[in-house]
């Protein structure tokens, strides 16, 4: 009969067991150092218990991601667990190897009509935003605890790069016809494999936004743009003429134009497409032409436009 295994070391602390099976759970516990406090339990019981409560939230989040891993590694899910699989949270531990899907994509898509397979090559914005969306918490919104998956330097670099792509009308005229703007907002055609290369594309604005009061068939992916101009002080023709007759575009004009042309310059991972710049590695033509963008500016800011009634 050999000696009993030692529980405590020479200083009266619990000894960290070196012979742990390297499972996810044990790794997590080690890393959040709960054990470090627990080691001192024999000597400072009150302090150790307080420290464990303090780590409650951290434990909770890491445990949920451990269960997610465990669920994925389980031999048979079989419907026994009906919990929703959460996106893997890259908080405490690194995800174990990102799957490389470029080969799968190459084998699974083909060029058709005007949609070429090189549309699937991501530019830096698309690449960054895909990874961000995959790694943030469920629901797609960035929480404070996810900050360490946001590469701030790269984020800023992409934002500036998108901003540099915005070009302004050479004739310094930012406005057009709001009636044409309304039909551009209603039109969802363009750039699909069933569309033609030389057709005039639509902005498909009502897909995602509310615009005029009359149009009830509007989407909820983007904020309402109803009364866009009125809410920003363009309440009558006088204030509108101040915008249109000014050779130096006001901040409102610059911002509205900028968002229409390249929304990513203002919100890097917005779901809103980039309508006025060539998108993607193959640098195709922008979706909307300059005159169409001017018509949309009038739709939003002209006090006579249906959006501002």
């Amino acid at each position, binding site marked *: 009969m050999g000696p009993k295994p*030692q*529980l*405590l070391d*020479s200083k*009266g602390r619990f000894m960290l067991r070196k012979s742990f099976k390297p499972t996810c759970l044990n790794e997590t516990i080690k890393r959040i150092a*709960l054990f470090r406090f*627990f080691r001192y*339990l*024999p000597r400072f*019981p009150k302090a150790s*218990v307080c420290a*464990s409560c303090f780590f409650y939230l951290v*434990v*909770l989040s890491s445990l*949920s991601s451990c*269960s997610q891993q465990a*669920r*994925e590694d*389980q031999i048979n*899910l079989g*419907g026994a*667990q*009906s*919990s*929703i*699989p959460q996106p893997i949270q890259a908080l405490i531990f690194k995800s174990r190897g990102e*799957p490389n*899907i470029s080969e799968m*994509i190459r*084998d*699974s*898509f*083909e*060029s058709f009509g005007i*949609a070429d397979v090189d*549309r*699937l*090559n*991501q530019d830096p914005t*698309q690449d960054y935003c*895909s990874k961000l*969306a*995959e790694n943030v918490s*469920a629901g*797609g919104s960035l929480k404070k605890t996810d900050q360490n998956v946001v590469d701030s330097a790269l984020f800023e670099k992409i934002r500036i790069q998108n901003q540099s792509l915005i070009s302004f009308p050479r004739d310094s005229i930012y406005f057009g016809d709001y009636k044409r703007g309304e039909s551009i907002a209603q039109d969802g055609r363009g*750039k*699909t494999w*069933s569309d033609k290369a030389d057709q005039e594309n639509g902005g498909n604005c009502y*897909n*995602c936004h509310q615009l005029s009061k009359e149009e*009830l*068939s509007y*989407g*909820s*992916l983007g904020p309402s743009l109803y009364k866009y101009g009125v809410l920003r002080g363009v309440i009558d023709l006088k204030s509108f003429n101040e915008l249109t007759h000014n050779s130096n575009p006001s901040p409102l004009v610059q911002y509205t134009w900028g968002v229409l042309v390249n929304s990513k310059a203002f919100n890097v991972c917005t*779901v809103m*497409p980039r309508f006025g710049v060539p*998108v*993607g590695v193959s640098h*195709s033509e922008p979706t909307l032409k300059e005159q169409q963008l001017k018509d949309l500016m009038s739709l939003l800011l002209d006090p006579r436009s249906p959006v501002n009634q």
Partner: protein
Amino acid sequence: MQSPVLRSNPPRPKRVALSWAVLIMIWISSLTTLQAQDTLAPNAKSLPAEGSSEKAIAEYRQMLQDENPADLYVLKGKALWDQARGPKQRALSNCDLGLGGGVFKGAWTQLPRYFEDTKSVQDLESRLLSCMQDIQGFNSGELVRSDFSNPERVNLSLLAAYVASESEGLPFKVPLSNAAELEMYRAGKKLFYYRAGTHDFSCSTCHSDDSRRIRLQDLPNLTTQAGAGFAYGSWPAYRLSTGSVWTMQQRLADCFRQQRFPKPIFASHATIALSVYMGVNANGAKAAAPGLKR
């Protein structure tokens, strides 16, 4: 020689036990919190409506649920199943959909899955395609290269509608039982978040949150059990706007078209991977196919 510290300062059993009890309670409460995240699948055939126009549309859709023209197509699919067809003039009767030759009940709710004979993960349409090839002698390459209006591809949709209808009301049990299935799930998830094309769209652009809609069309949240169960579980479906039955492959192809992506190849790995992702997310939710769509 024994350590004097060890002898003179033994741990107090009561306080040690208390600390362990606290830890165990934390562990148990975290587990129960996770399981409480299950959401009940909403009424599988409608999403909550708000506002008067949405309410009216929801009522209209509820009235439509009464009779689903898909049932007519299910009957056609059933007839096709037992019919001797193709170059080999044989019936599909013994096609193995994962539960053994010719077993339909519960077959669809465990697809996509890995199949030993083809050494790949297959969804409903690709499995029917390989059965049509192996048992009946159809040229699957030709069928893949043609389009959805090809008569045999239409027949494939009818067969799919029939097989899916045999699992109506059963809970999804898409397996993650081996490396291939797990790989497909993770690839499908990555593709779900893959932004590309002229509009920077990915599946997640539209389908990763609740209460979103395009125009007046509600968008299911495919990252949750409720949303995935509703969406994945209601295709194949009869589409009133086209007067035809669409399968998930066809639905995905049209999604990619509107995403401004290039065309997905029929029954390709990417499409199956997405079905694995949606199917696993749907696990536990009840299948409602064949569905009825606008």
